[in-house]
């Protein structure tokens, strides 16, 4: 007798008055539901569609009102132009060098911030001391500050340490402001890690770093992935720091793309812009598609405090 009731509730079908299945779907025809969901899929996919199809069109097809249509004649020229020919800085180099800049910036910044965050999380949860929570709160606030508040002094500091206008300088900036998030992730993860394990290791004679490297770190895979993805996405997508602290040689991809699109000289090559936009989006999009589960978890724990 129990089974049919449970089925009605989970499947949301059948006569609601008799079975008690009253989830929305019981009243709203499934067709309408799927139509609505489908319509929103179109809404979210539309810009991506526009970017992709128009990046393969000759310019005239776009300017003649054919933005929504599939390419009449497919061409890879906009991609080639965007990647290696478009005039962005002084030289017509395309986006390639800036893509490289972004890579050189994002890899070390993510690595360093993640490692520091892991160590911080370990200390804050397993070697608690008076004021640890307050300290964590102070670190956490760093996740939320509007970065405008640090632009002026950071520009001076980078000049002072000779890192102004370099990729090195950007790495430093991103490490500093990435630590907060990395610490948040690892702290919340390690808080749920059984303290008895740490105690057992202490009795076994393991020291501070032995416990970290032999016990904690080998079990940190999931949160490390979350943290790396989050930092990667954030740093790759950053525009403010890149625009403020980089010069022509060290600009990251986002800044270069914006320059490409905003440049007011000559004809607007929309197809090249779209190709460039996809290039800038591809790494993070790829990460999202490959490891979406971890990406979502990162988003969540960044907002809903574990």
């Amino acid at each position, binding site marked *: 007798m129990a089974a049919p009731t449970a089925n009605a509730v989970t499947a949301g079908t059948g006569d609601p008055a008799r079975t008690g299945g009253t989830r929305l779907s019981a009243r709203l025809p499934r067709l309408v539901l799927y139509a609505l969901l489908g319509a929103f899929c179109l809404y979210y996919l539309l810009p991506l569609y526009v970017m992709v199809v128009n990046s393969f069109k000759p310019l005239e097809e776009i300017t003649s009102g054919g933005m929504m249509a599939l390419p009449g004649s497919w061409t890879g020229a906009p991609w080639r132009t965007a990647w290696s020919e478009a005039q962005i800085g002084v030289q017509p180099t395309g986006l390639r060098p800036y893509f490289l800049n972004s890579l050189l910036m994002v890899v070390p910044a993510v690595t360093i911030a993640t490692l520091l965050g892991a160590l911080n999380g370990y200390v804050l949860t397993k070697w608690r001391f008076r004021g640890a929570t307050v300290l964590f709160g102070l670190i956490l606030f760093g996740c939320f500050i509007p970065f405008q508040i640090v632009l002026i002094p950071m520009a001076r500091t980078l000049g002072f340490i000779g890192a102004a206008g370099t990729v090195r300088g950007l790495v430093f900036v991103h490490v500093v402001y990435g630590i907060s998030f990395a610490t948040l992730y690892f702290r919340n993860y390690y808080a749920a890690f*059984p303290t*008895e*394990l740490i*105690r*057992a*290791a*202490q*009795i*076994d*004679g*393991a020291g501070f770093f*032995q416990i970290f490297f*032999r*016990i904690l770190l*080998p*079990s940190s895979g999931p949160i490390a992935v979350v943290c790396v993805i989050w930092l990667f996405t954030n740093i790759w997508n950053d525009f403010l720091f890149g625009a403020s602290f980089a010069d022509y040689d060290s600009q990251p991809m986002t800044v270069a793309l914006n320059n490409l699109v905003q440049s007011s000289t000559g004809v607007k090559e929309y197809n090249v812009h779209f190709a460039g936009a996809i290039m800038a989006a591809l790494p993070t999009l790829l990460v999202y598609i490959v490891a979406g589960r971890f990406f979502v978890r990162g988003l969540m724990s960044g907002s809903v405090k574990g």
Partner: protein
Amino acid sequence: MGFLDIDRVTKSFGAVKVLNETDISVEKGEFLVLVGPSGCGKSTLLNMIAGLESVTAGEIRIDGARMNDVRPAERNIAMVFQSYALYPNMTVRGNISFGMEMHKIPKAEREEKIAQVAELLQITNLLDRKPGQLSGGQRQRVAMGRALTRDPDVFLFDEPLSNLDAKLRVDMRTEIKKLHQKLGTTIVYVTHDQIEALTLSTRIAVMYAGDVQQIGTPQQIYDDPANMFVAGFMGSPAMNLLPATVARAEGGPAVRLDLAGGEAVTLPFPRATGLDAREGEAIVLGIRPEAMTDPEGADRDSGALHRVDLPVDVVEPAGSDTYVTVSLGGKDAIGRFRAHTAAESGARAPFVFDMEKAVAFDPDTERRIA
């Protein structure tokens, strides 16, 4: 001085005192169980013995040496945790070997030790598995194996059986007892389960609210509880604690208990010779369910059996026994009858009180007075 000395040990967290000037002395080879409800301070005390928590005041000594500032790894103790605390990323072998690695014991010696312990605990076939692939009972064995490799001076157990299901708990209890008999190591064992305490220990310390209420052999604790807390905590169903009045009967001391509906019964209480001066005063009579039985189930050797017919409120068959509830002194009192009793709720049934097994408490101080 014992082998393990807890000497006026106090623990406070800020203004909160969780353990008051506690004295316990454990002899070599003893199996001491710390038992009490959660929050009584027993786990804190165990953690202090392990060195996982600092001692606020007082001293802990093992074999005469002061341990207060010695790190856990250097105390030569071993500990089995409630959650087993097996390192999830290592195999069973890795788990058992880790502590020896940390103490820089050569590989050959480690291997030998692992084989020996695995043999003892019958986990040789599990050595290459990860903890996640083990059942609760198997994890428990591995956790003990890890502790055993250390040849510790003192073995510490922190509620090691509480995560197991009822049947497995009984089996593991027996195994721990066997292990103790075989190895003869000193053990301090924390539990909130009074049956575990009674079955395993050579001595029990009953704790409550940061104080040791009573320390003694299981028999002493069970038969002569020092106060009403110990009386109520140890034993299942709990000892009946019934408001009564000191009286005289048959030329000796006795207690009077009110029944429902204005009646009263008076039971001779030969043990209570010390209560003569209190005649007419209120006391609390403590009597265990097995000392309130049907006539056929009574202990024939007792010299103080008294039969009374009482109106039965509830009859609860529990397999091997039947529990019969009556109202005595305004409280529900449970008697343990044999399985096939004729007692029926609503009717009167004959009860035999074994007053040699009864105790009395002062209602104000809650201490035992007879």
